[in-house]
C-alpha cells in the first residue's frame, strides 16, 4: 500500500492551491471586516474602554443585552420540546415518515426568514387567521394578543430554529440501538423511566448541540424581533443596527458586537468541550 507509483500522488502543495482562493476571500471579506468592526469598540471615538464603560452605565443597553439572553433562553426549550418528538419519528419511524419529515423540516431552512416572518405577522394579527379560527370554534371569546410581544417573537423564531435542533438530535438518535428501550421495559422499567434512564441520556449530545445552536442563532436575530416583537423585545442585533444607522456610533456598535461574539464563542467552546463539535456535525 505504501509504495505507490510516484505519478499517482498529487504534489504536496496541491491541496493548499485548492484552498488558497477561499482563504483569501475569507480573510479579506470576513476576518478583516469583522476585525475592523470589533476594533472600533476600542478606538472610536478615541482609544480606550469608554464604549464598554458607556454600555455599563446606560441601563437601557444592559436591558437590551439581558432581554436578548432571556428571549433566546425562552426560545430554546420550546424548540427542543417541539423538535424532540419530530427527530425521534425521523430516527425510528418508517422510511416514508423520515422522508416526509425531512422535507418538512427543510422548509424553513429553504424559505426566506424575512418572508416567513411577514407571513407570521399576518397569521398572528388581532383579526388575523389564527384569532379568527380560535374564536369561530369557540375556544376564546376575544382575540388573543399574539403579536408585538414575547409570544409573537417566540412563535416567529421557533419555526426558523427547528431545523437547528432537529438535525443534531436526529443524527444523535439514529445511532441509538432501537432495542434498548424495549429491553428496559421487559426488565420492569415503566415507559417514562425507560425513557429518562436509557433513551434521554443517549440522545444528550444531540440535545446539547441543538440547544446551543438554537441559543446562539437566536442571539443574533434582528428581523424577527423587529417585525413580531414590541419595544420590550428589542434585541441586541437591532441595537447594533440603530447605533450605526441612526446614531453613527460605530464604537458602541463594535462593543455590542464584541459582547455578542464573546458569548457565542464561549458557548461554542463549552459545547466543544462537552460533546465535541465533530461528533455533532452532520
Amino acid at each position, binding site marked *: 500500500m505504501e509504495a505507490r507509483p510516484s505519478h499517482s500522488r498529487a504534489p504536496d502543495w496541491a491541496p493548499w492551491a485548492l484552498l488558497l482562493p477561499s482563504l483569501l476571500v475569507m480573510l479579506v471579506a470576513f476576518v478583516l471586516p*469583522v476585525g475592523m468592526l470589533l476594533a472600533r469598540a476600542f478606538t472610536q471615538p478615541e482609544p480606550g474602554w469608554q464604549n464598554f464603560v458607556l454600555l455599563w452605565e446606560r441601563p437601557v443597553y444592559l436591558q437590551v443585552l439581558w432581554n436578548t439572553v432571556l428571549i433566546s433562553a425562552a426560545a430554546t426549550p420550546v424548540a427542543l420540546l417541539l423538535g424532540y418528538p419530530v427527530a425521534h*419519528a425521523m430516527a425510528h419511524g418508517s422510511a416514508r415518515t423520515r422522508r416526509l419529515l425531512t422535507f418538512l423540516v427543510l422548509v424553513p431552512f429553504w424559505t426566506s426568514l424575512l418572508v416567513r416572518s411577514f407571513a407570521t405577522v399576518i397569521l398572528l394579527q388581532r383579526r388575523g387567521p389564527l384569532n379568527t379560527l380560535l374564536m369561530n370554534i369557540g375556544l376564546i371569546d376575544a382575540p388573543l394578543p399574539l403579536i408585538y410581544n414575547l409570544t409573537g417573537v417566540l412563535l416567529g423564531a421557533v419555526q426558523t430554529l427547528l431545523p437547528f435542533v432537529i438535525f443534531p438530535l436526529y443524527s444523535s438518535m439514529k445511532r441509538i440501538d432501537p432495542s434498548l428501550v424495549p429491553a428496559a421495559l421487559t426488565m420492569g422499567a415503566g415507559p417514562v423511566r425507560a425513557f429518562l434512564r436509557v433513551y434521554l441520556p443517549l440522545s444528550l449530545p444531540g440535545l446539547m448541540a441543538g440547544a446551543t445552536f438554537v441559543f446562539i442563532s437566536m442571539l443574533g436575530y434582528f428581523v424577527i424581533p423587529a417585525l413580531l416583537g414590541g419595544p420590550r423585545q428589542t434585541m441586541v442585533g437591532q441595537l447594533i443596527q440603530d447605533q*450605526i444607522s441612526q446614531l453613527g456610533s460605530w464604537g458602541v456598535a463594535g462593543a455590542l458586537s464584541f459582547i455578542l461574539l464573546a458569548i457565542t464563542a464561549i458557548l461554542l467552546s463549552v459545547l466543544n468541550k462537552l460533546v465535541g463539535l465533530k461528533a455533532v456535525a452532520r
Partner: protein
Amino acid sequence: MRPWRALRVLVCTLVAIYLLAPLVVVLIISFSSAAFLRFPPPGYSWRWYANLLNDPAWMDAVGVSLRVLVPAALASTALGTASAVALVRGRMLGAGVIGAFLMAPMVVPSIITAAGLYIIYRGLGLNGTLTGMVIGHIIITLPYVFATVASALRSLDPRLEAAAATLGASPVTAFRRITLPLLAPAVLSSLLFAMVLSFDELIISLFVGSARLRTVPVQIWSNIRGDFDPTVAAIASLCFLVALTALALEALLRRRNGDRE
C-alpha cells in the same frame, strides 16, 4: 407505549401545521381582492400580482437579486467545493481548524459581518456596487456549500480514487473521471441552496446596497414596515413557490444519489 406514540404523532402534526400555516395564509392573502387585511378575504383577484409586474421598483429588485445570486452562488460553489476537496482528501495539517474557520460565517450574526463589510467597502468604494454585494453573498453562502460537499466527500470511498490511480490515472484524471461525477449531486444541490440563500439574504444587502441597488428582500423590508400592502403577499408567495420548487428539486437529487449508493 401506545399513548406515547400518539403523542409523537400529535406533536409531528402540530409542527407540520406550524411550519406550513404561514405559507398557506400568505398565499391566500395574496389573492385577496381587498387592499386591507381581512381573513378570509372578501373576494379573490390577481390584482396584487398585476401590481407586482407593473411596478418597476419590484421588477428592478428582481433583476438585482438575479444579478447578485448567479455569480455569488457559482463562485461560492466553486470555492466551497475546492476547499472541501483539499481538506477532506488533502491530508493537511490543521484541516479541522481550517474547516471550522470556513464555517465561521454561519455562527457570526450576519449583522456583524454586514457592518464590517460596510466599513471595508467605504474605503474601497464598493458600497452600493454589484461587486460588493456579490462578495458579501459569497461569504454568507460559502459555509453551506463547504459543509454539504465535505460531508458528501467523506461518505465517498477513497479506495475508488486509489483504484483509478493503480490503473494508471493521474490524480487530476482520477478526480475528474471518478470523484467529480460521484460528487456532482452534492455540488449541484449546494449550488441550488446557495442560490436560494443568496436570494433570501437581507442584512448584508441592506448594509452594502443603496437606494438604486435593492434586492427583493430589501424591497420587501422597506415595504412591510409601513402600512399593510398585499403586493408584498404576492411577492412572498412567489418566493415561497421558488423555494419549495428548489427544495423539491434538491430532494429529488438526494434521492437519486441515495439510490445509486
